[in-house]
């Protein structure tokens, strides 16, 4: 595959760019933040996402979606990142949809229509510790009656309390640390024994701490195979990772462009500060880092879309690189803005906060660099 966008993809980019810039720019984010919104996003905007077809971008055409791939989802995510548009797109339309695509028809029929309509939000309940380590899942699902009984806790469930359903990974067999023996469940938000505590994050997103206190689910709540959840989980996580990477390309590029504009206007010592060579070199270096991140993310997306054996390696590298580059962009952004970069009034600090959240989401740069090493055989 050529590493350039085709005409259809360029059209999608145009429309996503126009949509986010007009319907969900940073001022939109500020509005919902400042009202202390308990969801952390606008349900109205989520409906508009549906009208644009974004919510079903990865849902097969036969099931009413756009039947597109990670590249297209990434195009939308980049614009989300650039505008800090708050939405359940990454968790619901990317991660959850990729998991549900591996579920049986009944399950898909149950959830896809709501996602397509922009009415349904799904939370991903994977993390149990402060760092991403999916093979260490300890949450237990015991056989019980016609189904399973789930017991344990989950953290960092983004938009958890706004979700209609949680995808919960639990252990049906095997020991903590093993990838075999995991099973994924679709757990209704109203299930007895399920409790959530919402907490606001640095980037004003809402995340939930979830308790599963003997939550009873039927056998048809299983997504994929019992004990074979790792396959579904991996697909879901990789979609979430490459999606977060694409969003970070947007966040980093947004921060970078804003900073370069500032360099071209701010005056100190009777000169526009963009004339100072030390800043110019750092700007050029940053540009190279962001361009590299954009490239590896596109590569990872296209390998995923091809179902290539190396996709997992490239997704790990892309999450790591996008994380490092975006982090550099926001750090340089705040520093080059000087004092005003520290104020809540200017947007650059919001990008720094969003970067931090996305870097942590589904494994940070160090975690994924470690996986690259392992996959590369050392």
């Amino acid at each position, binding site marked *: 595959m050529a590493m350039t966008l085709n005409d259809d993809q360029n059209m999608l980019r145009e429309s996503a760019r126009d949509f986010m810039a007009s319907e969900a720019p940073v001022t939109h984010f500020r509005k919902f933040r400042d009202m202390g919104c308990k969801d952390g996003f606008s349900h109205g905007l989520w409906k508009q996402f549906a009208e644009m077809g974004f919510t079903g971008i990865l849902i097969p055409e036969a099931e009413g979606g756009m039947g597109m791939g990670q590249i297209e989802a990434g195009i939308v995510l980049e614009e989300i990142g650039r505008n800090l548009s708050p939405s359940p797109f990454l968790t619901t339309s990317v991660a959850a949809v990729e998991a549900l695509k591996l579920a049986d028809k009944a399950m898909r029929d149950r959830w896809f229509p709501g996602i397509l309509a922009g009415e349904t939000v799904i939370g991903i309940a994977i993390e149990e510790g*402060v760092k991403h380590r999916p093979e260490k899942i300890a949450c237990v699902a015991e056989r019980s009656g016609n189904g399973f009984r789930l017991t344990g806790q989950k953290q960092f469930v983004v938009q958890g309390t706004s979700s209609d359903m949680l995808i919960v990974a639990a252990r049906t067999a095997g020991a903590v640390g093993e990838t075999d023996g995991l099973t994924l469940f679709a757990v209704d938000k109203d299930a007895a024994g399920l409790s959530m505590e919402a907490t606001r994050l640095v980037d004003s997103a809402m995340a939930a701490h979830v308790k599963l206190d003997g939550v009873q689910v039927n056998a048809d709540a299983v997504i994929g195979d019992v004990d074979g959840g790792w396959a579904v989980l991996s697909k879901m996580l990789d979609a979430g990772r490459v999606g977060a990477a694409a969003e970070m390309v947007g966040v980093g590029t947004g921060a970078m462009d804003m900073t370069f504009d500032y360099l071209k206007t701010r005056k100190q010592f009777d000169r526009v500060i963009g004339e100072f060579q030390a800043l110019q070199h750092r700007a050029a270096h940053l540009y190279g880092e962001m361009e590299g991140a954009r490239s590896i993310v596109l590569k990872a997306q296209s390998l995923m879309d091809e179902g290539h054996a190396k996709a997992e390696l490239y997704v790990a590298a892309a999450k790591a690189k996008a994380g490092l580059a975006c982090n550099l962009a926001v750090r340089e952004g705040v520093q080059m803005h000087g004092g005003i970069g520290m104020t*809540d009034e200017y947007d650059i600090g919001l990008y720094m906060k969003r970067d931090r959240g996305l870097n942590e989401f589904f494994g940070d740069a*160090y975690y994924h660099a470690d996986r690259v090493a392992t996959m590369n055989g050392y």
Partner: protein
Amino acid sequence: MSDLETFRAEARAWLEENCPAEMRTPAKGDEDVCWGGRNFVFQSEAQKLWLERCVAKGYTVPDWPKAYGGAGLSPQETKVLRQEMAKLGCRSPLNSFGIWMLGPALLKFGTEEQKVHYMGQIARGEIRWCQGYSEPGSGSDLVSMQTFGEDKGDHWVVNGQKIWTSYADKADWIFCLVRTDKTNKYQGISFLLFDMETPGVTTKPIKLISGNSPFCETFFDNVVVPKHQIVGELNRGWDVAKYLLGHEREMISGMGGDGGVTSIGAAMKAVLTEEPVLRAQMALFDVENLTFRAHGERFMDEWKTGKAHPAYSNLMKYVGTELNKKRNELVMSIGGTQALEWESERSNGGSKARNWLRTKANSIEGGTSEVMLNVVSKRILEMPGA
């Protein structure tokens, strides 16, 4: 027993007798800090008592002369007192920009009358000061400031705007750079003191990305400042300011770490054991942290003996603040998703995230890293060019 050891024993005894038990517990947050001033509300009787006893003894400013409210201690004695206070866990009786910044400047540039009056007020915690240097158009380029004091015979009338005035909304008085000669960029600035209650002075807090508002915008609209409220000579305020900036820089460079060499890694062993690449970052950080501690020690020893280059504090400021930012990036990485929390009690009100964001200002305030590198390059390395 040497004189110093005698002093140590005495100081110890005094502290044990006079420092209330409640003042020997770690401060829980900003609200436990005593800033003094007209409007300060003591958090407890113990806090008030501790301040009063220290004021009486001269221990709010132990190394200042007794005539100006201090205890007249030698540098060695001051160090010993600090050590003993640290051993007992005594809180600082009084925090103040007056102590850290204005006092040293007055000591060097003030008249005898000013020293007795202003330093005494500072020592007794009666007046809380703020600093008016930066302006919206002059951050790194301080001398481009526009705030102007028009000469009206026995007073100036000051108009203009300052920014980044720490706690201006809580301060009683301001020490402020004001242009008094528009024709001379460097030698046209004066260092003025005035009451924040003077008509025409207004403040507006600036909300930071950390969610806190320690800084203000400060506006001056025909503010009358009597001529005797100048420190140093007319139009030579830049000398005073530079002297102060050096002090500020040392203060900030001291932040480059935890005030010691303790690694933050040990407490995080469980996470680091599972994250080998992150552990490697922490290991390399610890090398830098141990280095910076040793560097700071060497710098202080050379400074004291007059061997350090006058511009060396700029280097320390650069290294220390960049290191502190790196430290906080690592704290966030190791803290993972929990460190992202912003309001919860579990996260102590988002303290990790807020501290991390706060440190981003370290390399901006008191001279940006870029300006520090310029100064090191020009003055220490003597690189050519303007």
